[in-house]
């Protein structure tokens, strides 16, 4: 469960202070599928970074499954990300010259646990890429690369998947396939799914849509 209360984020841009988030409070229950929408500059990426523990808020409190993560150190946040959060990016962010299987194994390298290859294989099978394990990213289509990225997000069995414009670089047919995959993962595994998107058709898949504007929820 994500509980955010009165969060602000202020960036210092030279002499100017930029208030990316200006007092946001929200609660996302386990297993919810939420879309965060808003125009560019609305603070949705900043909010996503804070929810994903990639960044800390300037002020306010953030409780993830009951633990206050707003004041954690960088290494503690790294451990939280590793255990609880899976990321899917618009740019896929796969390591080049590295097989799909090894890409999926990557988060397991930073956690304690055995059977890395088996778990990575299972994750790839879950996204329908059992026959592409040895392929490198440049040998895969965009949709396949995003599936590898989703498998990488799933491999640590996180409770939350954060996706930043996951279909932004895909055609509409592939987008639909990826959305179908998310839908399956959400319903079969009960994972909390949070999307950041500016595409209303993508947001329409979500059970709940949060609109941001100028750093506040509208």
């Amino acid at each position, binding site marked *: 469960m994500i509980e955010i209360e009165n969060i602000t984020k202020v960036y210092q841009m030279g002499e100017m202070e930029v208030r990316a988030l200006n007092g946001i409070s929200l609660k996302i229950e386990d297993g919810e599928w939420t879309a965060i929408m808003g125009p560019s500059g609305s603070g949705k990426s900043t909010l996503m*970074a804070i929810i994903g523990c990639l*960044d800390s808020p300037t002020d306010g409190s953030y409780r993830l499954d009951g633990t206050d993560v707003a004041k954690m150190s960088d290494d503690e946040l790294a*451990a939280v*990300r590793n255990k609880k959060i899976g990321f899917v990016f618009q740019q896929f962010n796969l390591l080049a010259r590295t097989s799909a299987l090894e890409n999926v194994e990557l988060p397991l390298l*930073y956690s304690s*646990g055995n059977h890395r290859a088996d778990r990575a294989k299972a994750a790839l099978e879950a996204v329908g890429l059992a026959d592409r394990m040895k392929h490198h990213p440049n040998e895969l289509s965009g949709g396949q690369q995003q599936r590898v990225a989703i498998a*990488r997000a799933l491999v640590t069995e996180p409770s939350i998947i954060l996706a930043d414009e996951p279909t932004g670089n895909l055609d509409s047919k592939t987008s639909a396939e990826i959305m179908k995959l998310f839908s399956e993962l959400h319903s079969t595994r009960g994972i909390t799914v949070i999307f950041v998107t500016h595409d209303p058709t993508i947001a329409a898949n979500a059970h709940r849509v949060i609109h941001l504007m100028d750093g506040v929820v509208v």
Partner: protein
Amino acid sequence: MRLNFSQNVRSALRALTANKLRSGLTMLGIVIGVGAVVALLSIGTGAQASITNRIQGIGANLITVFEGTRNQNAPSGAGGGATAPLTYEEAQQLNGLPGVEAVAPQVQSRQPVKNARKQENVQVVGVTPDYSIAHPDQLDHGRFISASDVSGKSRIAVVGAQIVTDLFGGLDPVGKSVKINGILFQVVGVMKSQGSGGFGFSRDTTTYVPLTTAFARLSRTRVGNENTVSTIEVSALNSDSISTAMASITDKLAVLHKIKSGAANDFTVQSQADILAAATQVTGVLTIFLGAIAGISLVVGGIGVMNIMLVSVTERTREIGLRKAVGARRRDILYQFLTETITLSLLGGIIGILVGAGISALVNASGTIATVVSAQSVFLAFGFSAAVGIFFGIYPANRAAGLKPIEALRYE
């Protein structure tokens, strides 16, 4: 299981092979540095070993007396203090002093030695029979100079092994004659080959004649009615009596030279150990000097490594961001990049050691200096390249580890 060493190395090798030309050129800096350290140290060590061997080969219990006072640490030829020549008569008075086994006065000069075939300018040394006690086992065949040769001023000569090759075409010269300084001498013996002394200096051309013959026919320096000698070599009875012998020689010569008590001597008595220590010191400094010059190129190579690693960190900012996003801690990234630098440096180090050993072998084959690649220099070079990897890797790796995940992910 946390990210372990072998995975780090595997990922480092993958990153390095991703850009082979760049990694290769970067490594070349380390290869040249380490290769230079190994090669130059091997040349220095080889020179040191050859000088040490030669000095020890001259005779372990040998004491050398020469005129003037010479600071051991000063370059040879730099004189100092008063000088009075040593004479044959003085040398003879050293016989029978405590600790003294044999006294071998010598007079040296460079003379043209020729026969029908060829002429060479060589070192001609006038000696007494005691020379063969001071320098045992140096005669190859024939006979050495005898007491009657000295008393009779015989025109006989014992030639070096190289003379046999140069003047006699390898045939046995015993019984044949040579002209030294235009005077006919009969060859009665041949010395053993001493081997190359290094630095192009060979003892194998040295030719020995009776001391009195040298006085009469080759050397014209006299003090009054006395014949002066270049050096007096004294053989001590054994290694324990070296200091006794040195003291008794010094006392005796001081009396003969009328040195007032407390005044400086006008001659020097030096043991082989002193000469060895001085030579070792000089060649040791030379070796360190060569190594230091090579070390500079290793540092330059290290800076090249750092430069490339900084470029690599910048290029792979998004990768670093991703790794952090999926749970890499600060030190995971630090170790990853540090492993990459160290792998690069150590690979360069290993290749450099092979290159250095190759250069050393080439120098050896050329025959100028017998080089020695010591285990020490290999460890030193290897350790140094690892240290370069760590030292020049820490800054780029720290920079990578300190990146904020969200900024790194958004980096274009």
